């Protein structure tokens, strides 16, 4: 179609799209490149090296980062798992529970962590733990993470479930399956792509969180983002870029995974 007769396309929009993608990716690409810099200075390029990756695992700060990584991953795993279970259960009630009074209210409650600014949520959670007398530490981070991961796990699960016609469960029950059997044998397998997607997103969100964690963590308990932040506050160092690049790669792998899982349509 020639530009003259095409009423859809606007000249310049393509360019701006590439500008947009350039802005989004340029900082990440630059940091990735510099993470392979041989120089201890972050300003001079001295050639390719993996030394800073080695430094992350064996350098003077490796102990701190290892502990932070263990905290981050264990919290992300537990929080994402629990949030996914809670979200699946809530989605079943909201998508398959008919129309009821508390339905809209429940939806509002679930999306609350998305509407309240993160810093407000952080303050509120800190105050709450303080008021009920919880000692800040691993557990407080975990509880906070479970809560704000719920909407991220919920959205893909709900979207998936809405795409599954209820005739599947009806067919199962027509063929003598109880409601529980229909859920386990038919609905759950069909929802699986949404559930996996939701889990992965919750996992990333938990892994990425800085603000809330920063508020509710106790002294001495760090996750990767808080450890990185503490380090960056004292100046950008190449080992931080190596960690960042590894986390970046992990996020991209997980989102890509989630993308392809959500695209597999097992209802067709």
């Amino acid at each position, binding site marked *: 179609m020639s530009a003259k007769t095409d009423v859809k396309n606007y000249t310049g929009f393509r360019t701006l799209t590439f500008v947009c993608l350039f802005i989004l990716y340029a900082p990440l690409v630059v940091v990735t490149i510099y993470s392979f810099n041989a120089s201890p200075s972050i300003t001079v390029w001295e050639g390719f090296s993996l030394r800073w990756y080695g430094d992350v695992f064996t350098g003077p700060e490796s102990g701190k980062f290892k502990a932070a990584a263990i905290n981050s991953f264990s919290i992300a795993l537990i929080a994402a798992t629990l949030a996914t279970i809670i979200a699946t259960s809530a989605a079943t009630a909201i998508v398959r529970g008919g129309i009821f009074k508390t339905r809209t209210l429940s939806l509002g409650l679930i999306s609350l962590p998305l509407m309240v600014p993160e810093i407000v949520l952080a303050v509120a959670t800190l105050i709450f733990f303080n008021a009920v007398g919880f000692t800040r530490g691993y557990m407080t981070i975990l509880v906070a993470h479970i809560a704000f991961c719920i909407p991220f796990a919920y959205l893909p699960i709900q979207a998936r479930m809405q795409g599954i*016609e209820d*005739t*599947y469960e*009806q*067919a*199962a*029950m*027509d*063929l*003598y*399956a*109880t*409601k529980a*059997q229909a859920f386990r*044998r*038919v609905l759950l*397998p*069909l929802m699986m792509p949404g559930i996996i997607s939701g889990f992965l997103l919750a996992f990333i969100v938990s892994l990425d969180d800085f603000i809330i964690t920063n508020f509710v963590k106790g002294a001495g308990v760090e996750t990767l983002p808080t450890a990185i932040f503490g380090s960056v506050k004292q100046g950008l160092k190449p080992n931080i870029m190596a960690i960042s690049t590894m986390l970046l790669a992990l996020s991209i792998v997980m989102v890509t995974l989630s993308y392809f899982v959500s695209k597999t349509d*097992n*209802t*067709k």
Partner: protein
Amino acid sequence: MSDETQIAVDVRDAVKRYGDFTALQRISLGIRDNEFFTLLGPSGCGKTTLLRMIAGFEDVTEGAIFLYGEEIEDLPPHQRPVNTVFQNYALFPHMTVTENVSFGLEMRGASKADARTRAGEMLELVQLTQFAARKPSQLSGGQQQRVALARALAPSPKVLLLDEPLSALDLKLRKAMQIELKHIQRETGITFIFVTHDQEEALTMSDRIAVMSAGEMQQLGDPRDIYETPRNMFVADFIGDTNLLDVSVEAISDGRATCKLSGGHRLTCDAVDGVNAGAKVHLSVRPERLFLSDQPTAAESLQGTVVENIFIGTDISTIVDVPGGQHFTVRTSNSDRGNKRILDPGTTAYVNMEPGAARLLVD
């Protein structure tokens, strides 16, 4: 039951309401054992609602449903020995054809091996043995339809419910499946309750038909009854083509009614309960029970003018105006062309009625 034939499904005064909306207004009907029974009506007439109430997917607002004498309306679907072929089949997409067909048997507690054996037999019945290991998505629409049928038949239900199962198929396949379904019904001896909005399909397949409209049953009878002696306007109009004539009943005697058309013509036909002298009602005459001639040749004969001849393949349809603003459509089979003359538009013609062709309608 006082009837000699056993009643399979007995619906008694069933009412279904959604809030203020009444989907089904006090339906009572008995579906006989081994019968191919059809619920026929346009979209939103309540036929699917009634089917889903029998299956257990809709609760019954008022009334009761009996299955071979057992009251079932409070049982959940998985405790009712009826199975459904869904409109879009609802085959489980994550299971193979065999797994789909054996699902119901497994849920009823059959061993996996037994369920597989029975599934194999069912697939043989619907001629899909070679597709047993496939996923539903790898089958054509017609094949999916057969899997859905096999799956519903596998647990040997007492009654099989079919919710517009053929509506997604193309015309040729649909015709073939109609015959096959009828065949399978006879072979298995299972009572079929079939829902459709396609009157031709209903007439072809059914032992008996219940015509429904606006949540009410309009007429119950075998296909011939329904077609030839429609009870009211709705049935006459919905089933097949017909000429509907405005008439006023002048007199009724000896079971015959004398009716006057708006143009002054008089016709006599069988009297019907509920239509009294003086009533302004409608008369239905099927177009194929009329024939044209240039001279009056039947007892009931009206003079008019040919307006148009329309060629429709097997037949020719001729539109004739008679005085008083009434149109008649007369259908002449193409194979009869030698015997019956096709008259050119503008010529005067007589519309002749076969004896018993005109039927008085209640409202």
